[in-house]
């Protein structure tokens, strides 16, 4: 059994007993795509819905929802997942509590969630469960064996979807 830490802009693939873990999701979103029959799953930790400067030379495509989720899908298929069996869960996209609305607050979380849903729909991957929005940061752990997603927040404790 391995525990994979997925930090911003990363994609990790796990099999059988593996766990995929994203810590401290604020406005970021973790998208988990899994094939429960072949026991394989992948997680991507997304920062923004889409790349801002299309012409920038050092774009990292896995940081963005529109480019990253497709890469995750390709990787899963390469690793032996069957596209028709793929399902998805998403978590994150919170607006952090802050007293001054102009600096730390933004609607990035909401836009991230919207874009992820759209992309999943385009790719024909059914969204089974989601925990998005709200005002608190989350930590998410996905258990590949059981397809369960455990979500931890500071104030509300743990829940499983």
């Amino acid at each position, binding site marked *: 059994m391995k525990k994979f830490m997925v930090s911003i802009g990363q994609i990790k693939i796990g099999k059988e007993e593996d766990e995929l873990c994203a810590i401290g999701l604020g406005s970021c979103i973790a998208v988990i795509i899994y094939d429960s029959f072949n026991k394989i799953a992948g997680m991507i930790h997304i920062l923004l819905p889409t790349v801002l400067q299309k012409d920038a030379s050092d774009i990292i495509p896995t940081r963005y929802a529109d480019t990253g989720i497709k890469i995750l899908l390709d990787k899963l298929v390469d690793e032996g997942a069957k596209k028709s069996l793929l399902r998805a869960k998403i978590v994150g996209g919170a607006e952090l509590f802050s*007293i001054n609305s102009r600096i730390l607050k933004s609607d990035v979380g909401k836009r991230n969630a919207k874009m992820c849903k759209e992309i999943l729909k385009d790719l024909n991957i059914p969204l089974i469960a989601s925990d998005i929005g709200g005002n608190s940061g989350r930590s998410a752990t996905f258990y590949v064996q059981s397809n369960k997603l455990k979500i931890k927040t500071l104030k509300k404790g743990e829940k499983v979807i």
Partner: protein
Amino acid sequence: METLLLTKLQENTLQEIANISTGHAASSLAKLMDKKIKHNIPFVSVIQLENIFDLIENPEEETYMIALEINGDVNGVILMLMDEEGANLISKYMTKKMIGEDIDKMTLEEQKELRFSVLVECINIIGNSYITTLTDITKLKIESGLTDIAIDMKAAVLDRAFLKAGATSYSDLIYIKSELYLTDEKYINKNFIGEIVIVPNFEEKDRIMEGVGI
């Protein structure tokens, strides 16, 4: 993708600037709290969002983050991170010194409100001593911007701050961290009250270097 690194000279320069600035910031804070504060030697590193977890200790811990934007020749954020205990200590001593009231005797609602304004005041003072020192040394034009407070998991508040500092358009950021300690009071966390983090854009380090004549 190639990883950008600082040369030893650049790293030492930034570390020294941060050291002097933190010294000034710590002594202003000490005056406001009427306590002795010491700080460690700042830690300087170039980070990519992909590996911030190697840098952050206890990413899931509840953290108070107060932020001050900086604009001008150098853009970025100055942050002060602390746990609840650190925030309580700072607000307790600052209210005592500044308005002569005991925060413990107030109602919870008053305490909360006062704590926020004290913390905002605190980042204004720390941030501006930082900026003053930086502009003195480099002769650059740097202005302080808006302030904010966020309370959440450390990793969650930090990536908001990194986004604010320009992680959207730049792949690398400079991360400068100095820790502050109270010297005459011991409490759980080895009398650690918080850390100051300054995150300028990687691209703008050259301006700082030019400013000091390197």
